């Protein structure tokens, strides 16, 4: 007889054992984003470098990590590398895999952001004798970052869900702990409904954060769309110049 025990599902949702798994998922995601962004920025800079060795390495890196499944990467790091005498604990394995993989995607996002900033912006900065660092920090980076936020948001959403793959190498995040609960109580739908709810809550929270970021960094582009109505003062200024 078909049945779904809602009370049991709510109980699983408030189960401390599963909640600790949620914290692990959040931790993996945050570490993956931070590590991935730092490494990805480095890979992007190498990819844009005029040095053929650096850009070649970056190309290879991106090709390799985007061209193979994260699942295989995790399994190789966890079970394969010990064969070569390289051994990490399970959390480190998951972090290394997630960061290496995420960096490849973020590198391309970072690079496309920088490439979308027009050359004229850099030229104007040089003409004003701004140093390379100031040009990067004050002119190129803020404009590139604004363009990166939407694809970055998508990538972080994917990463959050991809952390579930770490369950395969026995990291006890949401998925793994759900499996464990399920094997203990055989209430399949009840357990996975609770897990699903957690993923939805986390991705929704991230959506809110992403929208805030876009609003904050998009302040000047938001005003640009209002341009047509907002140029009222120009005729007056024009007349003055003509006088």
């Amino acid at each position, binding site marked *: 007889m078909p049945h779904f025990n809602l009370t049991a599902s709510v109980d699983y949702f408030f189960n401390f054992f599963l909640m600790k798994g949620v914290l692990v998922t959040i931790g993996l995601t945050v570490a993956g984003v931070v590590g991935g962004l730092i490494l990805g920025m480095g890979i992007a800079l190498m990819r844009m470098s005029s040095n053929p060795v650096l850009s070649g390495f970056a190309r290879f890196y991106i090709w390799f990590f985007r061209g193979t499944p994260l699942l295989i990467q995790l399994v190789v790091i966890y079970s394969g590398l010990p064969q070569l005498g390289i051994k990490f604990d399970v959390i480190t394995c998951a972090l290394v895999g997630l960061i290496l993989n995420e960096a490849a995607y973020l590198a391309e996002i970072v690079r496309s952001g920088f490439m979308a900033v027009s050359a004229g912006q850099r030229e104007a900065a040089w*003409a004003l004798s701004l140093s390379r660092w100031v040009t990067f920090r004050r002119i190129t980076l803020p404009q590139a970052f604004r363009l990166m936020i939407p694809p970055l948001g998508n990538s972080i959403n994917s990463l959050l869900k991809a952390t579930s793959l770490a369950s395969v190498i026995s990291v006890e995040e949401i998925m793994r702990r759900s499996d464990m609960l399920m094997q203990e109580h055989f209430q399949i739908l009840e357990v996975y409904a609770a897990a699903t709810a957690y993923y939805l809550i986390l991705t929704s929270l991230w959506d809110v954060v992403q929208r805030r970021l876009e609003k904050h960094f998009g302040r000047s582009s938001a005003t640009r769309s209002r341009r047509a109505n907002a140029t009222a003062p120009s005729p007056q*200024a024009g007349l003055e110049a003509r006088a």
Partner: protein
Amino acid sequence: MATDIDDGQGQPRKGEVPAVRMEAVYKYYGDFTALDEIDLKVASGEKIVICGPSGSGKSTLIRCINHIEKHDQGLIYVNGTELDDQRKNIDAIRRDTGMVFQSFNLFPHMTTLENCILAPMTVNGMTKEEAKDIAMHFLTKVRIPEQAEKFPGQLSGGQQQRVAIARALCMRPKIMLFDEPTSALDPEMVKEVLETMKKLAEEGMTMLCVTHEMGFAREVADRIVFMNEGKIVEQAAPQNFFNHPASERARTFLDQILH
């Protein structure tokens, strides 16, 4: 076609160091020769208008002066400083020159005022207050002090270009380079930008302008430099250039643009 260098006019006055001196400058893009043996001397205070058909190397010429483009051969001196690969020389030359671009190139994520104070603060080490004073001085001069808190996207094209001029002036350059400053503007906004440039010329600024505004050239220029296929074909006072162009190429060019 012989390169006709009118040395009489480009010669530095009273033994001054010329503002710009180019000797046998070449610039290549792959197989294409963008600048072909350019010799040019600009005295301090002189106003030069560079004209010629598109692709003749006008923009490349002025972009080489402040090292936005790197020349491949020949010598360039700006106020006596040689433009070579040394960072300190490039920086010194860029501090002496201001540039205004066809597409304005204002920083869209900063307000008008922030656009103007960034370089004075980070390059010249001014305090925010000092930089603001200077910025407001020049924004007043280009007649848009009331737009200081607006973002470039909220301004008209003419206003944006005037902000760009003010931003360049805030670094107190000795030479101003204009790269087709009115080409991207709606017709009714051309005048306000040209008026601003005329005012600057009257104050004695050394100016090199790439422009198709022949009215401006006639009125303001001390000398017209006519380019074709990367070469300086002729240079003369506006009177002479417009009434008696020496080269066939300049005659055809003038026929086409003056209708």
